[in-house]
């Protein structure tokens, strides 16, 4: 029986270390791996020399359970008299961190639209009447529907594509009215020139533009923000251009958690542009940034799709490098 038990421990995934009078008597291969020790160098020697961690040693001596960070791993440890059991929980911890990241992304996606909806509700509460009230209600309805679709799309984007052909101008009035309070606060306005037709999910394009415009309002220094679309041989591009100090390194801003140097005193998560890039990838396009003479442009591209070729309707074509 004893031999069988020992053989079982030799192949177990959990680590087990047996000690007596603060000396190691036995440890199985899993424990040796988790503790990064060589069994022949620690068996018969003091417990601390095998564990090499004062908290782990205290637990082994005093008994109990704990999660500890050691050897770049997260270990869940249970100590009973003479026995220390070890489980590697590193992957579980990493999964939890990924989940927390998803929650932060979700919060970011909801923050801007909810702030806009709140402004509309306050306007209604303040006595908006007639056609204006109807318009505000219609916008609130549309925005609620959009957020509902956003939530439905969350489970790993496995739903059928929501892409369709639409004119970018479709999004203009909703965006402008939605951002009106923020624009008024900064005494800024948006000049729209986006007559092109694209094949994409309108909700995703709306969300991406909302993020880009939100950034332009927050970090731009001038009053005017230009939203401009154009076309080249690869498809349609759409840019949000604002005035301000030209940036130098755009790529790192598209990584989650990175913020621009001028963002130090403005609240934000550094997730916006990473999300914009992910949204653009969803319709097969890209997101990019580039410096202008007196400002910066953040843009989206829409590939030419067999389903709906983009239409040429202006002369603002240029290449994007």
């Amino acid at each position, binding site marked *: 029986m004893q031999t069988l038990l020992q053989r079982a421990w030799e192949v177990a995934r959990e680590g087990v270390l047996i000690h007596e009078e603060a000396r190691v008597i036995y440890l199985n291969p899993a424990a040796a791996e988790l503790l990064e*020790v060589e069994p022949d160098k620690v068996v018969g*020697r003091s417990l*601390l*020399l095998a564990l090499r*961690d004062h908290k782990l040693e205290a637990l082994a001596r005093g008994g109990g359970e704990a999660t500890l960070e050691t050897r770049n791993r997260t270990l869940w440890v249970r100590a009973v008299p003479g026995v220390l059991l070890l489980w590697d929980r590193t992957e579980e911890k990493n999964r939890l961190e990924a989940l927390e990241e998803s929650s932060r992304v979700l919060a970011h996606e909801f923050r801007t639209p909810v702030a806009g909806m709140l402004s509309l509700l306050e306007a209604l509460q303040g006595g908006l009447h007639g056609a204006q009230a109807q318009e505000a209600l219609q916008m609130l309805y549309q925005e609620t529907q959009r957020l509902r679709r956003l939530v439905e799309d969350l489970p790993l984007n496995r739903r059928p594509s929501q892409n369709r052909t639409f004119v970018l101008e479709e999004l203009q009035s909703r965006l402008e009215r939605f951002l009106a309070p923020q624009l008024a606060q900064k005494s800024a306005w948006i000049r729209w020139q986006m007559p092109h037709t694209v094949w994409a999910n309108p909700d995703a394009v709306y969300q991406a533009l909302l993020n880009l415009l939100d950034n332009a309002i927050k970090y731009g220094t001038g009053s005017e923000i230009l939203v401009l679309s154009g076309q080249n041989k690869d498809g349609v591009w759409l840019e949000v251009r604002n005035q301000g100090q030209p940036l*130098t390194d755009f790529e790192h801003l598209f990584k989650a958690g990175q913020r621009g*140097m001028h963002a*130090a*005193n403005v609240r934000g998560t550094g997730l916006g542009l990473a999300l914009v890039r992910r949204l653009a990838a969803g319709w097969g396009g890209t997101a990019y940034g580039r410096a202008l003479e007196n400002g910066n442009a953040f843009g989206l591209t829409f590939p030419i799709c067999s389903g709906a070729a983009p239409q040429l309707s202006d002369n603002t074509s240029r290449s994007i490098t």
Partner: protein
Amino acid sequence: MREVLDRELNQLTEETIRMISLVREMVEKSARALGAQDPQLAQEVIAQDAQVDAMELDIESKTIAIMARQALVASDLRFAFTIIKALTDLERAGDYAAHVAEDVVILAKEPPLKNYVTLPDMGRRLTHMLDLVSKAIAERDLEAAREVFQRDDEINALYEEVSRELLTYMMEDPRTITKALTLGRVARSYERLGDHLENISERIIYWLTGKMEKKPEDVF
């Protein structure tokens, strides 16, 4: 007689391992506090520094007592000197972890300059170096001691990277200077901490081989 000496030297080893483990905890917490901008966790690190200082004095006096009583020779004598020298470096390493924690308390008062990624990564790499130092002493592992050299090169490279990045921030926007200088101090603390761990490794190699090994760039 030899048995008594072995027991005393083993006790010395254990207490040194315990001190390394405490410094490791401080470094690990400092990196976590920096990443999460957590001033409370940083305060814990600052408080632990006094424990490390007390351990240094305690182990030092025990080592001197053994040296005086046992008239050590050869590798035993080299071991005792290794411990004496390592204590100073470990105490300084604890100080640097506490300095980082003090800077985290300052940084946490305002929105971050950016999402701190590289600096906590430096801290995590240093905890791994401390694991290697601990293994080298506990298992008399020469390779683990030599690996610390290599890891310190990585810390130095990250330090250069962070310094260059911070310089860019300061040049492009003078409003970031105060914050960037504080972050520069954090990077410098971690870089110096790595140097102290390298010193300990040099001593461990001397203890185990009787020869002093230095990195090529440290030999003039």
